């Protein structure tokens, strides 16, 4: 088996992986498009070609727009807040704060716990009357609030859980990047009499930019992909206040059995992810050498 002459060997090596990749990634992506222009087969009615009808339904569907809006808000709020927190965490852990190892563990712990498990704990925090937050606010005489039961606060409550879970995870990337920054820069800045804030603003922050780009992209993808906490805490309610695109897909298929409409929804979701991926490849992979 020579490295260059026989072209059979590499294809043999590749075929199992390629076969499964195509079966569970590429084929379903194409099949989603295909099914989105047909009607859902019902008892007594076969599936027929309907063109863009599913997409027209989509445009007229207030729940879809609500889910899209929620998703966009989710990304707009959770991403910057989680990143700001993760930079603060990384800077603290990077400096000689007492109990550094324990602190790093504390920050990173939520990232390793199953979302489904932590969502159950947070569910209790948010419970009216006897939940932890309710007890604290009643002790201070601020009254009681049904955080997950009110449309105004349900989505922010989920955002808090997401931020709490992701910040520590992003911290490790910033920590890695901070450790790459040459200590001579800090010495030079100190000699010049720069304040800590100036040093961060003028030296660390620009040098952390590649990490920030990377984290932003992944955080945005996660914002469109994570639905575990929705399943546990709100099921999209109250009144679709916490409806997110992927959860809506799940509902449409497994509650209403409307696979074609779900396919159209999935196409929208895939399009959004493709845009993010495109940005990612333009920004990040210009630096990566494939050869």
């Amino acid at each position, binding site marked *: 088996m020579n490295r260059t002459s026989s072209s059979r060997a590499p294809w043999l090596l590749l075929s199992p992986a390629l076969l499964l990749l195509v079966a569970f990634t590429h084929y379903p992506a194409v099949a*989603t498009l295909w099914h989105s222009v047909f009607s859902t087969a019902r008892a007594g009615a076969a599936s027929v070609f309907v063109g863009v009808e599913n997409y027209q339904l989509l445009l007229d569907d207030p729940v879809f727009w609500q889910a899209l809006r929620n998703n966009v808000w989710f990304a707009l709020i959770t991403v910057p807040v989680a990143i700001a927190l993760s930079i603060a965490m990384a800077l603290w852990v990077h*400096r000689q704060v007492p109990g550094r190892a324990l602190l*790093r563990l504390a920050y990173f712990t939520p990232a390793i716990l199953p979302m489904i498990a932590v969502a159950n704990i947070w569910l*209790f925090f948010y419970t009216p009357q006897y939940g932890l937050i309710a*007890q604290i606010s009643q002790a201070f005489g601020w009254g009681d609030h049904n955080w997950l039961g009110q449309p105004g606060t349900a989505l922010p409550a989920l955002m808090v859980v997401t931020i*709490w879970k992701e910040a520590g995870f992003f911290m490790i*990337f910033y920590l890695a990047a901070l450790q790459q920054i040459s200590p001579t820069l800090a010495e030079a800045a100190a000699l010049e009499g720069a304040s800590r804030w100036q040093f961060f603003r003028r030296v660390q922050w620009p040098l952390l930019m590649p*990490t920030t*780009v990377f984290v932003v992209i992944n955080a945005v993808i996660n914002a469109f992909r994570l639905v575990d906490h929705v399943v546990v805490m709100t099921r999209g309610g109250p009144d679709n206040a916490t409806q997110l695109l992927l959860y809506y897909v799940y509902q449409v298929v497994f509650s209403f059995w409307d696979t074609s409409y779900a396919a159209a929804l999935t196409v929208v979701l895939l399009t959004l992810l493709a845009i993010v991926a495109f940005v990612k490849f333009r920004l990040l992979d210009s630096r990566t050498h*494939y050869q």
Partner: protein
Amino acid sequence: MTTSASSTPPAKRPPTTEIAPVSPRDGTARVSLRPFSATGHANLLDTTGAWLLGLLWLLPLLYAVWSAFHPSAYATRFSLSAPLTLENFVQAWQAAPFGRYLVNTFVLVTVILAAQLVLATLAAYAFARFTFRGSEVAFMIVLLQLMIMPDVLIVENYRTIAWMGLRDTILGIALPYFASAFGIFLLRQAFKTVPRALDDAARVEGANAWQVLWRVYVPLARPVYVAYALVSISHHWNNFLWPLIVTNSVQTRPLTVGLQVFAATDQGIDWSLITAATLMTAAPLFIAFLLFQRQFVQSFMRAGIR
């Protein structure tokens, strides 16, 4: 932080880039003396802020531990005189087949990891060491999966799994994850750093391609395998939506789905029971994480995200 996969942040590296991933000093560089390690007043502020945030971050877990180890009367009130008990764990364990769920999760994670490692190794070897027509197209096919995640394709993948007759089987949950573009990418990067001379020497010794792969490439890429394994295990241990869709029986449910079924049907809402079950779900992975903290953190750093 040595291998630069497409999904790792292109952190500013020292001029000597591309150290082989087998370098023992991998990511352990430490700078001890730093300016801006403020003193006195600012330091106190820093420490306070850092620890307040740390406590806030630990609070949910601390609460879960408190509630799980005390009688349910104390689930919603804090008292130092509260008696400790293991009763909640016993009850939760009896109320739902958590032992079975644990076995299911274990089998699921093992099956996925084994398949991923084998398939990714073969594919990465082909990409890293063979020049063949169509290699670029094949590689693009792989990279596409980094953009389109199987998590989003639940409708069609459910259809496929049903068509294969794999509904409500552990294999049905695992199959879509067997081929991991991310794993292929990571290993290909690692294999590319193996010096050609080693490869050639082995061939001169009369080793065939298989033996070269097993004796030269795989051992040299061990840190990458460990990193990938930890990331894969933690991802699939915690995965929820897809297993929820595929499974509908005790025989196949992983822990995450089992916990949700338990918490959702337990209308009496006994928080002590639910937190005990929650801790049981998270415990095995969490204990592993505590034991191998450094490896976990470095794996996530190296692997970027997945």
